[in-house]
């Protein structure tokens, strides 16, 4: 039986996430991989498994690393105290992987969209005419 082959960096990283209602829900900023028990001495030869897609400013900051990453993470913590902005989407909630990645959940269930909401509430909504902007 043919199984689908995916080059993870090329086909998962930075892909657009689309929620169950067809709304944009951020991008894939990293991918969570579970190592087998007792790796690298796992006697059954089990392979690591992709468990979740990670999205959000906190994840992106860690991926950037360095000053840029630390600065980005500090800015996020300032506007959202108590959270690092990481959103983990279990692979069970992924419906399709293509040019975009379709989810089985609503974007409102993702903590990774908080920064976008903050900008919408505190900046975008203050601009005259913003009330007529499309969703």
């Amino acid at each position, binding site marked *: 039986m043919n199984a689908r*082959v995916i080059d993870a960096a090329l086909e998962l990283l930075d892909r657009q996430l689309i929620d169950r209602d067809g709304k944009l829900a951020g991008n894939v900023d990293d991918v969570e991989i579970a190592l087998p028990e007792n790796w690298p001495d796992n006697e059954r030869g089990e392979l690591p498994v992709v468990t979740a897609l990670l999205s959000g400013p906190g994840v992106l900051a860690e991926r950037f690393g360095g000053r840029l990453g630390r600065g980005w993470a500090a800015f996020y913590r300032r506007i959202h105290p108590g959270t690092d902005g990481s959103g983990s989407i279990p692979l069970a909630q992924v419906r399709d992987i293509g040019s975009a990645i379709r989810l089985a959940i609503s974007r409102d269930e993702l903590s990774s969209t908080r920064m976008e909401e903050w900008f919408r509430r505190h900046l975008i909504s203050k601009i005259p005419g913003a009330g007529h902007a499309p969703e």
Partner: protein
Amino acid sequence: MRLSELLNKEVIDANGQSAGHVHDVRVIQDGPITSSFDAALRVHGLIVGRGALANRLGYGRSAVRGPWVIRAVLEAGDKPTVVPWHRVRVIEATRILITGSCDDLERARPVSDGRGAARE
């Protein structure tokens, strides 16, 4: 572990020789069946080498054929190879140590685009 913890690290074989850097991680949807996503995605290997840039830009995929000049230039260097996951022994901050010699690594075969790609 995160995907970003593997990417761009230098792969060193048992003789201390460099096989290049990790440019991608090849996963295959052949794991245990899950409730909503068919089979689980399992990590089978690391795409490694200096020439792996062509793969990152999509030229490692059979569906991407042009412009042929760019393809020819990108593929003129070293060809990307695959490090099977069972040869990965240690993941360090900047390096990944593997068993055996990097001379034994097979060339990374292009995957046909998207669904139904043949398993390696």
